[in-house]
């Protein structure tokens, strides 16, 4: 078996929603609903889904920014004993956060506008290694160069940078403690096409240089296909399909994956997709029983609407569909 760095088992995250007479919760949003997967060391694990699919919540649960309702997440850092992250103590978490870092979607809001670059990027070093003064400046300078920024930027404030440069700062900050796993939550979504390409290349270079593992959360399917080794497709809190990139795009097995791939516009006018998208109109309701995609699925039967679909494994692909492989 390949070297696993992260093991997620039966992860559940429910958010209560209010609305009762005394403001008490009347219902829960099942933002992450029973998810299990492994991330292998050195790979780029993509999580793709539309807004509201729970992909960001998943990332935050793994990071323990949110405390999952149930389930387990085991992190295997190199030459360290595996740790269970769910229910982990704050103190221990701070150690783990050195090996497991995060890059945020919006480089604008994830950098405190009142801190200089040296403090932004070096904050974790100061905490983790107690670096100060020149030693800290040296380390941050190296980090800046590694992400393609000049070390003269050390004393600047974030407002003196463009969007792309800010995201590089975010990456430098994630890199600072020499982590093994980086969770990139929509890390390139806010960037322009040309800057996005630069950033993706940078991430790839860093992965090779430092033997990093990425969990790459995104909604842009073309980017995910380009960047990831394996992909989990999420729909309403569930991973409906998990497969290698090649297999997923060659033969999508879940009807939702298929609809998603069909809907992506291809930058080639000779490959117009015609009118296939209209097949999946949502009426906005989510069934409480059965398959969550049933109300939008063109192949749905009564079985789908009443019974939860089982997890099936076909050609190395995990699919959550009654009729996987049959459609």
């Amino acid at each position, binding site marked *: 078996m390949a070297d696993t760095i992260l093991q997620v088992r039966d992860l559940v995250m429910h958010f209560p929603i209010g*609305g009762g*007479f*005394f*403001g008490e919760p009347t219902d829960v949003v099942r933002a992450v609903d029973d998810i299990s997967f492994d991330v292998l060391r050195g790979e780029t694990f993509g999580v793709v889904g539309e807004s509201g699919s729970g992909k960001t919540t998943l990332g935050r649960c793994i990071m323990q920014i949110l405390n999952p309702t149930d389930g387990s997440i085991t992190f295997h850092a190199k030459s360290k004993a595996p740790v269970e992250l769910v229910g982990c103590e704050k103190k221990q978490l701070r150690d783990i956060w050195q090996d497991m870092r995060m890059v945020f979607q919006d480089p604008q809001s994830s950098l405190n506008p009142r801190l200089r670059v040296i403090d932004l990027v070096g904050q974790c070093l100061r905490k983790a290694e107690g670096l100060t003064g020149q030693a800290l400046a040296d380390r941050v300078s190296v980090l800046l160069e590694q992400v393609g920024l000049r070390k003269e930027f050390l004393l600047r404030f974030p407002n003196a940078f463009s969007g792309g440069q800010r995201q590089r700062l975010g990456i430098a900050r994630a890199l600072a403690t020499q982590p093994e796993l980086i969770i990139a939550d929509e890390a390139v979504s806010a960037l322009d096409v040309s800057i996005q390409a630069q950033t993706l290349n940078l991430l790839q270079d860093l992965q090779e240089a430092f033997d990093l593992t990425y969990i790459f959360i995104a909604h842009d399917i073309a980017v995910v296909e380009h960047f990831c080794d394996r992909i989990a497709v999420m729909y309403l809190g569930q991973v409906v399909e998990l497969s290698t990139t090649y297999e997923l795009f060659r033969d999508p097995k879940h009807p939702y994956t298929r609809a998603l791939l069909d809907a992506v516009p291809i930058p080639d006018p000779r490959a117009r997709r015609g009118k296939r998208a209209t097949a999946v109109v949502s009426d906005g309701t989510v069934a409480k029983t059965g398959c969550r995609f049933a109300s939008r699925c063109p192949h749905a039967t009564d079985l789908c609407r009443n019974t939860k679909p089982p997890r099936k494994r076909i050609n190395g692909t995990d699919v959550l569909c009654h009729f996987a492989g049959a459609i």
Partner: protein
Amino acid sequence: MLGYVYRRILYMIPTVFLVSIVTFIIIQLPPGDYLDTLAAELSDSGGLDSGTLEALRDQYGLGQPMYVQYWKWITGILFHGDFGLSFEKNLPVNDLIWDRLGWTFAISLLTLLFIWAVALPIGIYSAVRKYSVGDYAATFFGFIGLAVPNFLLALVMMYVAFKYFGQSVGGLVSPEYIDAPWTWDKIVDLLKHIWMPIVVVGTSGAAALIRIMRANLLDELYRPYVVTARAKGMSEFQLLMRYPVRVALNPFISTIGWILPTLVSGEIIVAVVMNLPTTGPMLLRALLVQDMYLAGSLILIVSLLTVLGTLISDLLLAWIDPRIRYQ
């Protein structure tokens, strides 16, 4: 909507309870109990026999634990409408206050209308014609209005009225009408007098509301939906009134919640200066001679009515803003 109304009314209960407690504490604050003062007061003018005194002592639960006293006081009010005795006048509080409360609230409500009539158009003008001469004038007026305490304004206006117009100001009607029955002439005379307290009490509120309306509207003026409306071909005036002004009105209406308490406060202090037949002078007099049941009752009722006014404004807001209604 109904659920919201119920919840809002339910929220009022602890507030009302707190108001009664605070009032009770104020009544208890001066040293010595009420009957000691009463006995001392009346001993000069013939005195009270000890039997009556004992009966009263029992009725108010004096000498018993605080919560018993509170209970007797509050149940007296709730079930018998008995607010206690004013020892200075030796009359039930009930006989003294209602007229004056009526005037206080009449003036406060009229002032509210005045504020609205002034602040709404000026606020809109000042936002739409930002940095125009009119806007600067409104801003200047706004700041002055906020900076002049209303009793000072009352004094200045009385001075000006007397000095330059030879008009003696004070009271709500001319002396010859005070005990006269209501006639057309008396109403005309009332109108001649009542505008001044209204303007005096309303100035700071109007100034504040102009600033608020201007800020609210400026927030809305550059929203995308305004651009949409413009792109639809609506005339500027139509579009202004139907969209941004309509939206900016909501926070404006919710200001009733805090403007009403300040108006009542302002009315009380201005009434002292202008010698109006409202609660102000009576409350001040009661406090100065420590006629605590009278003072306490006034504070209690004024506060309760304000809380009620706030409730009405909240319901009004929910009625006109669908977003609140559907929460």
